[in-house]
């Protein structure tokens, strides 16, 4: 039985800037838990008892967070330069003797799919997923459940299935990786293609639920999905006169003042102060040590740790990075906007608000247009209307 998993968590996640400027992609919070913790949980629930984590970019953030993670043995190996996934996996070589599972630290996967992968009779197997827009992924062509071809990021949306990057592999794969590595091939999908070319059968299994985060606003949709699993729990103080409906979880030492109206699913971290008379609507997660002042409204948003939101603010479908100080009357305009990404214009399928990077200081009565990204450590003067993206460490006067 397979007991070891290798989780690749060394990447930066450049497309998720500004949020990944101080933490690796895998540490982005979803329902107040880093993405990587969902992967750890899934690995543990599917029977893994040892996890080897390949870390690189901002590795301290990961190691510090998981110092308390229980029940599985965690070993860290470092990939100093992020050359590619196969190169990342190679760092774990000396810890692997038998067949093992490879997981991507930034994709949420259900434990059932991993269990299916483990039980699969084939020596090599890959979890795949149907996807409407395949061009950002590794497209997998399947014949008789085996991989016939794997094409990384094709120019157009071709094929039907994409690779989840979750594999079951025998330890002999390290020899193949080294072989490819010597020829300058660093991506795991290319190693897999090499194996296919060599005549190896690589079985494919359809994953049940798999989620990827590519752009900052994906955090909102993934948060919305994952927060459904919230169960009601309160360990803080809730004053008389607070209305709570649906599953709402309130952390230790948090205080909710009178007149607040909270509709779950909502997750609120430790040591927060909320209200009086604040409204928190569904699919919102609020990190630790955050303060939300009277008469503010927050919905479908991810508010990270150590944030201050002053009174009469309206934040919807937005992501607010760690340590932001937001003055009163802050308002996000929400809409199905058109966003320019990678020199392409894309109409958003669902409404999005503002993306505010870490440690911004936003003074009172600032309005942000839908889908605009404010970088890390920006300062914005009062009464500003933000109509375009603001790069990190800039001042808007």
């Amino acid at each position, binding site marked *: 039985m397979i007991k070891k998993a290798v989780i690749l968590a060394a990447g930066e996640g450049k497309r998720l800037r500004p949020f990944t400027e*101080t933490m690796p992609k895998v540490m982005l919070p979803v329902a107040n838990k880093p993405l990587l913790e969902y992967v750890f949980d899934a690995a543990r629930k599917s029977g893994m008892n040892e996890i080897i984590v390949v*870390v690189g970019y901002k*590795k*301290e953030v*990961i*190691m*510090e967070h*998981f*110092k*308390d*993670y*229980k029940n599985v043995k*965690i070993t*860290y190996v470092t990939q100093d330069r992020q050359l590619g996934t196969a190169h990342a996996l190679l760092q774990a070589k000396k810890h692997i003797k038998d067949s093992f599972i490879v997981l991507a630290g930034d994709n949420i996967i259900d434990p059932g799919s991993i269990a299916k992968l483990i039980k699969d009779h084939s020596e090599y197997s890959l979890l795949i997923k149907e996807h409407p827009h395949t061009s950002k992924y590794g497209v997998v062509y399947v014949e008789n459940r085996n991989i016939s071809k794997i094409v990384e990021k094709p120019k157009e949306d071709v094929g039907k299935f994409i690779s989840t990057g979750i594999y079951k592999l025998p330890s002999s794969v390290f020899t193949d990786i080294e072989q490819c590595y010597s020829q300058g091939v660093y991506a795991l999908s290319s190693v897999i293609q090499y194996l296919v070319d060599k005549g190896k059968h690589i079985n494919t299994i359809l994953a049940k639920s798999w989620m990827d985060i590519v752009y900052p606003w994906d955090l909102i949709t993934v948060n919305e999905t994952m927060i459904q699993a919230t169960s009601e729990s309160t360990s803080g103080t809730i004053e008389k006169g607070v209305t709570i409906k649906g599953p709402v979880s309130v952390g*230790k*030492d948090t*205080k909710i*003042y009178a007149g607040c109206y909270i509709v779950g699913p909502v997750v609120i971290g*430790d*040591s927060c*102060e909320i*209200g*009086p008379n604040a409204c928190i609507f569904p699919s919102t997660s609020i990190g*630790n*040590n955050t*303060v939300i*002042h009277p008469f503010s409204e927050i919905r479908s948003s991810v508010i990270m*740790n*150590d944030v*201050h939101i002053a009174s009469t603010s309206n934040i919807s479908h937005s992501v607010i990075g*760690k*340590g932001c*100080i937001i003055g009163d009357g802050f308002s996000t305009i929400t809409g199905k906007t058109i966003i320019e990404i990678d020199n392409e214009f894309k109409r958003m399928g669902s409404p999005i608000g503002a993306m505010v990077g870490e*440690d911004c*200081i936003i003074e009172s009565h600032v309005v942000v247009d839908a889908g605009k990204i404010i970088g890390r450590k920006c300062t914005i003067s009062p009464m500003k209307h933000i109509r375009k993206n603001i790069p990190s460490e800039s001042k808007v006067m």
Partner: protein
Amino acid sequence: MCGIIGYVGFRDARTVLLEALKRLDYRGYDSSGVAIIDKKLKVYKEVGEIANVEKQIPLLKGTTGIGHTRWATHGCVTKENAHPHLSCDKKIAIVHNGIIENFTKLKEELKKKGHTFTSQTDSEVIVHLIDEVYKGNLEEAVMASVKKIKGSYAIVAVSQDEPGKIVGIRNESPLVIGVGDSENFLASDITAFLKYTKRVMFLNDGELCVITTQSINVFDKNKKLVRKKEELITWDMKDAEKSGFPHFMLKEIYDQPETVHHVLRGRISEIEETITFPEKVEKLLNTEINSIHIVACGTSFYAGLVGKYLIEQLTNIPVFVELASEYRYFGSRNESSLVIAITQSGETADTLAALREAQLSGCKTLVVTNVIGSTATRISDGYILQQSGPEIGVAATKTFTSQIIVLFLIALKIALLQRKLGSDELYNYIFHMKELPRDVRDVLERSDDIIAIAKNLKDTTSVFFIGRGINYPLSLEGALKLKEISYIHAEGFAAGELKHGPFALLTKDTPVIAIVTQDETYEKILANIGEIKARGSRVIAIAEDSDTEIQNHADFVLRFPASAHVLPCIAITVVLQLLAYHVAHLRKCPIDKPRNLAKSVTVE
């Protein structure tokens, strides 16, 4: 200063004891040993690392045993002086932590009665005393023996004739019972057995416990059975492990965004504008306080010095910061003064003694500590926990920053109670205190700049740290951190004092680290930097982001965030810690266990 462990249960005692000793070795580590009852009492001890003992021990079936890591106080580091110590017939073994003050006299008496001593330690007299009165009941013999002893001790004893039983007793040295299922533990520190159980009982001074697989009985001085309450430890083993970091110290530095938040948890409220302490503490602070004495040792002493500036500034109450080892003998005591003792472990012998002295002279006592249930929390009138989690690295890091924050909260609370603080001011302080995690994160983000400076410093033989005002104790702490882990001579000075002597030591090979904040002393410290530069020394300034002038004066500048409005000392401290760490790391020093030092100093 040593670490002790006792085990009785069903597991292989060898494994449990060695495991525990490895956990305890931060308390002292010049030699170690174990005694296991495997039909006969078998003792193995060795100088140096625990692995040296481990190599010697064959596979044994014994499930009862005791162990010890030693940090020499009496007698040099030799195999003979390592614990456990044996009686003449080799049937009784003991381990001891503490100091027996009257051991010379006892030793002479015992020698006359025919006992032969094999070591130079004070501890060995204990086992001979027990042997002298032993008649088949170990607890009675131990109880009778300690009556003759003067000094501090935690003792754990076993006898070959009573396998499956260990006896422990403490007086002014720590000893904790770990409660398991069909097994029980005794140790000087919870971490020793945390892997096996989280249920603990704390012993008071003078209490003796008899432990078997199935029972724990605690007796007071008069041999009366004492009912003890079991307590649950809420932190777990992983906390005490390195979690991928190369050293505990680095992990603990990176812990700080969390610990500076933990120490504030449940204590400040931005919406209500309040600062809350346990009732006992609030009562202590809400009395007439004419002066405050802060007593502490080492890094805690420097936290106290920082606290002096904070408390005096906010409350105008005079604060005297005293080294515990001095205060206990020479300090002035005044009934209307509040004595605040700072001790991370809650077991620092000098600080405890100072605390007792203060109480004897009628002072009210308040303790700032990291360890719940520690002796300090039990003998003081009130205590405030730092809530920093266990700190394993010998060099204190996260506990220092938390101590400063606790002292700041005390200052604010007193100022509030004495109506010296407007609500706007208070709101401002609370608001900005909530930003402390972000300030710390910000500094950690800049570790690459600090590493660059560390490379510049690694081959120097002497470094000066200077600062004015609250930055003066920070320079002392910066120097302490650097010297204790990198073995580079380092000294902290009040910047204005340089020309009154230390200048004589300054050469072009003595880099000076200047802590510069944009306060009323800014011009003065720039002038000091000028004076130093004139003598050809390198100056490395630690300055705010917003300071655009400093680069014209210093050779290098390390920055801390300008947003650190309240307590910039926290961000500065993190810079100093990282600097010391990286210098030591580049010099390949054993960072978590600097030579000759131990984590909690439970001897005087």
